């Protein structure tokens, strides 16, 4: 997927003015935020479980080479074929080659954010393979030619009326209005796609090194269908998704659905190991696992390594006051919200996403809810420091900071400047004690008034107090 995060500021203005989007985003608050709060109480020691989960992820990341090699060895021993991809383009090439090798004409796909990173569907279509998205949300987006705006609820930005219109137009069937009817219609339209697909494509929420398995969590059952019915299954995931043992993955499973959708467990958890036996009636004859790097290995051993703990639950965006107001599309790439504001610059280049590390109030809600304790605000701050060091900040921002630094280093001038400033603003505030405009801060005063300071500066008050 093309990275358009450089356009962030303009997108934000558009999204803030989109009343329909604002209404749609409020649903995340009531379903996911409240849902999560209700189910985490089921775990007697939630904090201890979060710490254990972070430790599991760190164990792997601190020795990723050996855990990856062990996974590969186990998976290969069970008949899976493990491929390594350095870039998104490599994933597309490998999947296209697998499709050609097995004479694949049609593919059914369950949700995979890594495949969104790669823009896999376009590459396959170009190679003459018809791809059908089968996750309901992703299917709606495929029909509408749109990108997902949330990593768990991809179509959160659309309401049911839009989906009714879309289905009526694309399916050429009488327009349905109820959500259950719309789901039924999608089921009936998509069932033949599962039955006829030559190849199933999925992601993998985790790879289990102990058994060489790919683990997939789904609710709809499409993940099970695409990994059971077609004769070829390709699972695509990032190199960081390895977990040592079945016990370790179980600890993570206690947190993932609770943090994501407020469920104790997803409807289906499938642990897939190797291809089918000759005597088996179902299951793929060929099982390919593609491990994508795409910049992830560059984070190993560095100050941003903690970002690779991420298990893609989406809790950070659900709880982010910025995401809650602008939605996912404004971020301009696959991953929105706090985790995306860090991952997009790290994987795609800081210079291409200058606004994302600053698209946060650093309120800290994301770090509080992250199931693997990623210090997201700290990582955002580190990216801001990098921008400063590399001279990537705007001239205005750099100059303002320089001016402030000079002032702060010259206390008498600082005292005089604040004294003068406060008096001026107090005078301009007038009877209502409100400033409607402030030179150089229109971004703030466009939306609200600035309360005029009253009385004395802090220093003046401090001095007076000491005298008394």
């Amino acid at each position, binding site marked *: 997927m093309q990275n358009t995060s450089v356009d962030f500021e303009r997108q934000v203005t558009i999204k803030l003015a989109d009343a329909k989007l604002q209404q749609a985003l409020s649903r995340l608050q009531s379903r996911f935020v409240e849902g999560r709060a209700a189910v985490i109480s089921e775990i007697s020691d939630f904090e201890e479980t979060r710490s254990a989960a972070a430790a599991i992820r760190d164990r792997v990341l601190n020795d990723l080479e050996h855990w990856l090699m062990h996974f590969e060895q186990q998976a290969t021993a069970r008949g899976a074929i493990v491929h390594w991809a*350095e870039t998104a383009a490599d994933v597309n090439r490998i999947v296209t080659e697998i499709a050609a090798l097995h004479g694949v004409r049609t593919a059914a796909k369950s949700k995979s954010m890594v495949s969104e990173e790669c823009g896999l569907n376009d590459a396959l279509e170009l190679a003459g393979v018809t791809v059908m998205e089968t996750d309901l949300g992703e299917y709606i987006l495929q029909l509408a030619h749109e990108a997902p705006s949330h990593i768990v*609820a991809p179509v959160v930005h659309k309401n049911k009326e839009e989906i009714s219109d879309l289905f009526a137009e694309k399916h050429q069937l009488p327009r349905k209005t109820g959500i259950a009817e719309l789901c039924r219609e999608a089921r009936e339209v998509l*069932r033949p796609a599962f039955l006829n697909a030559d190849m199933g494509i999925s992601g993998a929420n985790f790879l289990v090194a102990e058994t060489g398995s790919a683990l997939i969590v789904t609710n709809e*059952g499409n993940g099970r269908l695409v990994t*059971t019915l077609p004769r070829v299954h390709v699972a695509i995931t990032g190199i960081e998704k390895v977990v040592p043992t079945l016990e370790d993955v179980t600890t993570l499973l206690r947190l993932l659905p609770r943090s994501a959708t407020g469920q104790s467990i997803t409807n289906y958890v*499938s642990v897939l*190991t190797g291809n089918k036996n000759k005597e088996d009636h*179902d299951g793929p004859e060929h099982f390919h696992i593609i491990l994508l790097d795409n910049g992830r290995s560059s984070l190993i051993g560095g100050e941003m390594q903690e970002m690779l703990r991420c298990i893609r639950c989406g809790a950070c965006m659900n709880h982010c006051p910025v995401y809650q107001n602008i939605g996912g599309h404004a971020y301009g790439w696959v991953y929105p919200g706090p985790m995306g504001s860090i991952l997009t610059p790290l994987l795609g280049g800081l210079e291409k996403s200058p606004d994302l590390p600053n698209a946060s109030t650093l309120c800290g809600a994301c770090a509080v809810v992250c199931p693997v304790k990623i210090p997201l605000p700290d990582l955002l701050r580190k990216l801001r420091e990098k921008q400063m060091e590399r001279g990537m900040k705007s001239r205005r921002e750099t100059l303002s900071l320089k001016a402030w630094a000079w002032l702060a280093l010259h206390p008498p001038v600082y005292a005089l400047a604040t004294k003068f400033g406060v008096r001026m603003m107090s005078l301009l505030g007038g009877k209502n004690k409100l400033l409607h405009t402030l030179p150089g801060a229109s971004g703030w005063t466009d939306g609200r008034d600035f309360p005029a300071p009253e009385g004395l500066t802090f220093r003046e008050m401090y001095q007076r107090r000491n005298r008394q």
Partner: protein
Amino acid sequence: MNAREKILGRIRNAQARTNGAAVTATHTEAVASHLALHPRGPLPPHPDNLLARFKECALKLSSDVLETGDRKEVPTLLARYLNERNLPVSGVCWPSLAGLPWSTAGLDMQPRPAKNQDLVGVTGAFCAIAETGTLMLLSGTETPATTSLLPETHVAVLDPRRIVAAMEDAWDLLRREYKQPPRAVNFISGPSRTADIEQTVTLGAHGPYRVLLILAPA
């Protein structure tokens, strides 16, 4: 150098910088020992009554639960359940369940893997997990994965003695009874569902619309 060597090489170099060069041997040992011990993480408190907890959680996930002390009664219970809901009385079952008196109860259950048109699928279960009300099914020649997936109604016949407290206990059971996991281990927690449209939960997405658990000793 191929992609595998390049990726692993980059990781190795990065980790040698932070950990020092002489770590490879100790790391390989650490991997082996963690795999051998496979320690458990923090677990929820063990429920006093596994069966009660399992039923409570299964109902919360919108599964239906019926119980009988006699496995031969399973077809009668199922026939009543299907008739009450005006559901079709024919379908497929796992070969291991072919011996139950289906036709006596007025049901037609074919012992074969499910096809698209089959509307009822009857399976057994490897075990079940009380913590979340979840079934654990293993794929195999005699236990096809499609039976619990393609039909609109999934019926699982479960021996209540095979209910364990947590998923960790289920893994131990699997390690004890099989050397390695089968092609597919499927944990099933109620009927398939989606909340993709307006975050409103709707039962029956691509998998079954309803899941009936019949608890009956083997």
